[in-house]
């Protein structure tokens, strides 16, 4: 049978029998793949090193007829080890894995693999605030799923103005003019635009006051994802 080779991130693990595990892998080439990893429950398993979470591995597997493949070999390429030295980052990391697993249920795309790789790399860099990563991840997830909010025109179709305060209308996915009550300024909107365009959260971290702006945007970003069905309710 033909062996396939891919870079992979483990999204989920389930026990199968005494010593085997079923792994859900996210790959750029084949999307989401379920494989049976034999014998990995044993502590000294040769496969175990390559199937840790927060790592990217090169895996070789055979596709199965029933949709369940078999893992032949696994070699770890990158391990984002700093993530698990910090409790908050560990929690965030697991949360992103879970969200990616949920998001990619129907539509596996190469972009999601890259999104998770870059998110791990950012979490691994202890100088980047988790609020910055959260905003970047959220905007990228919205972009990939086609639920990007309109960051150029307000709810009436007028271009967004730099000196206006805005609220956000979740139903139209546009900002609403709210001169006295709005919580979002031009700086917040610029940060959202940058989050969509930047290829890594490192870019956002370099913006002066960026961490604070991102902290203020987290609730909006999470609501947008919930509304778009990207976060389990």
């Amino acid at each position, binding site marked *: 049978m033909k062996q396939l080779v891919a870079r992979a991130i483990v999204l989920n*693990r389930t*026990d199968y029998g005494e010593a085997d595990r079923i792994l859900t892998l996210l790959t750029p080439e084949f999307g989401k793949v379920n494989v049976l990893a034999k014998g990995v429950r044993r502590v000294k398993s040769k496969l175990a090193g390559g199937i840790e979470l927060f790592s990217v591995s090169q895996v070789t597997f055979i596709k199965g007829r029933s949709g369940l493949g078999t893992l032949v070999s696994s070699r770890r390429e990158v391990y984002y080890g700093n993530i698990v030295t910090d*409790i908050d980052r*560990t929690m965030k990391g697991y949360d992103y894995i879970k969200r990616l697993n949920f998001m990619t249920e129907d539509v596996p795309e190469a972009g999601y693999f890259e999104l998770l790789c870059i998110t791990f790399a950012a979490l691994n860099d202890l100088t980047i605030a988790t609020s910055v990563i959260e905003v970047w991840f959220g905007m990228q997830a919205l972009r990939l799923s086609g639920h990007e909010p309109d960051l150029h025109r307000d709810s009436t179709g007028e271009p967004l103005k730099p000196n206006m305060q805005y609220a956000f209308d979740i139903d139209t996915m546009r900002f609403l003019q709210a001169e006295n009550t709005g919580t979002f300024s031009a700086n917040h909107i610029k940060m959202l635009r940058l989050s969509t365009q930047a290829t890594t959260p490192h870019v956002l971290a370099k913006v002066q006051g960026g961490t604070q702006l991102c902290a203020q945007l987290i609730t909006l970003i999470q609501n947008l994802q919930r509304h778009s069905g990207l976060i389990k309710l």
Partner: protein
Amino acid sequence: MHVLFVEPDINLARAYEQAILLAGHSAVLARTAQEALFEADRILPNVIALELQLPGPNGLAFLHELRSYPDWQNIPVVLHTYAMPQAQAHIKNLLEAQFGVVSWLYKPQTSLAHLQMILESHGMPK
């Protein structure tokens, strides 16, 4: 009762071990998450006392790994840690609901006798 202490400070760990042994139970020490998984596999503890702040992968990573195995789902875990529950309030619910953490003891305010009592209340075979 078999207790697994996941504690990076070896002197502290030995003190806990002595106390547990004197009370007629058995104790095994592990300094890291990896060692702890190995020992859990070897002795199948009745209860685990866990410091969240470990060298290398932290206690949360250990809990994720531990709970990913069905036969380790029901081992009660007592957090005995320098991480203050108040400072980690955002993960407290998650730890209790998802990872079966049965008690959170702030190390500087927990006596050895209290730790032993909590471990016995959760770890004694019923």
